[in-house]
């Protein structure tokens, strides 16, 4: 295993131009304006939209990992402490013995989550972002160098614990699973509508602690249905494994479908364990 650092892909290829281009000189009296637009013959496919570029990179990753190598990729997102690692550990434990599993785990710092995954005997790459609050497609690309994609059936990607930034950075997975927990407060869903809208399925974890922390778990489920209509929702207590089976079956269904999980079908809602 090696550590992949955030800066490895953030060096612009045209660094050497920057100092000259943005250097301070005497201001010119007249300025020209270069306007990107439809009449610009040099316009790139993404039209100088940097977020569209990240999305295009994610599509390339998806094409390579999922379609060329037949690897099932699921991304897990959510706040630090929501239970992402524990949930993926439960999924790894219930997998068939011959399933070849890899995990890319993102954290700002430290080796704690990677160490837990290694104890399960799966291939692990730890991506410490340093200061970045999310994984981006370039970091996944770097991390893939550690894996033999021909020798993988499943790749789990655990994003950095964050409820805001990952929304704009898809990573090429078949589905993005957002994990929230009752201990974050039962208003956590409505506080983060955009991230729910960017994901394909949701987990409300630590269901066993709802009463202890005074969280109304039904309200959380109603909020999910409100901000992301039709989103598949699972209630789990990952520490004990309760409710993990329906989530695992759902993932198996997406895997067996052989294609991507497109949107949220109307009416396909809550999966009660």
């Amino acid at each position, binding site marked *: 295993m090696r550590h992949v650092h955030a800066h490895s892909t953030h060096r*612009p290829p045209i660094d050497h131009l920057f100092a000259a281009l943005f250097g301070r000189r005497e201001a010119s009296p007249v300025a020209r304006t270069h*306007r990107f637009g439809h009449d610009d013959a040099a316009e790139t496919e993404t039209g100088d939209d*940097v977020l569209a570029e990240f999305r295009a990179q994610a599509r390339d990753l998806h094409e390579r990992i999922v379609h060329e190598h037949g690897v099932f990729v699921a991304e897990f997102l959510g706040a630090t402490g929501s239970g992402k690692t524990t949930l993926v550990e439960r999924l790894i434990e219930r997998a068939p013995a011959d399933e070849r599993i890899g995990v890319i785990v993102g954290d700002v710092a430290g080796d704690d989550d990677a160490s837990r995954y290694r104890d399960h005997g799966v291939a692990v790459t730890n991506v410490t972002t340093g200061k970045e609050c999310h994984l981006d497609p370039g970091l996944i690309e770097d991390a893939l160098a550690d894996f033999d994609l021909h020798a993988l059936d499943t790749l789990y990607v655990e994003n950095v614990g964050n409820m805001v930034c990952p929304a704009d950075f898809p990573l090429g997975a078949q589905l993005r699973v957002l994990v929230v927990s009752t201990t974050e407060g039962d208003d956590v869903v409505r506080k983060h509508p955009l991230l729910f809208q960017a994901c394909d399925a949701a987990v409300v974890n630590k269901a066993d602690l709802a009463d202890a922390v005074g969280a109304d778990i039904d309200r959380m489920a109603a909020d999910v249905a409100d901000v992301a209509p039709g989103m598949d929702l699972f209630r789990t207590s990952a520490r004990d494994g309760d409710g993990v089976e329906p989530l695992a079956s759902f993932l198996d269904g997406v895997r067996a479908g052989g294609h991507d999980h497109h949107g949220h079908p109307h009416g396909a809602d809550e999966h009660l364990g």
Partner: protein
Amino acid sequence: MHELSVAEALLDHAAAAAADHDHDAARVEAITVELGAATHVNPTQLRFCIETVAEATFDADLTVHIDLVDPRATCECGWAGDPPSFEGAAAVVPTARCPECGGPTEFTRGTECRLASVTVPDTPATTHATDTED
């Protein structure tokens, strides 16, 4: 703080456009960014990040214009229009719920963060004459 990576990517584009042989500019004075309301990018932080990267790294004095783009969305039921926003948010946060049928919508506008224009000095870096306006 994902605005920093977005800022770096935008400055990449600005540098490439200025250095393009048709423009051949020696430096960049201003950039305009079109930023969609359905993104997670905070416009105030984005402006700060662009200015800071340009200033701290390259000693530049760059003017940054950010134009906010209102979201548009469509639904399978046939509805298309301006999506309603969540109440009480400090910024415009559009919902992905169809106001007609309650189903999920797709954003057709408002997910962009696009370098719309780059302002460069009138005098090209090299001596040959070029048009001053595109």
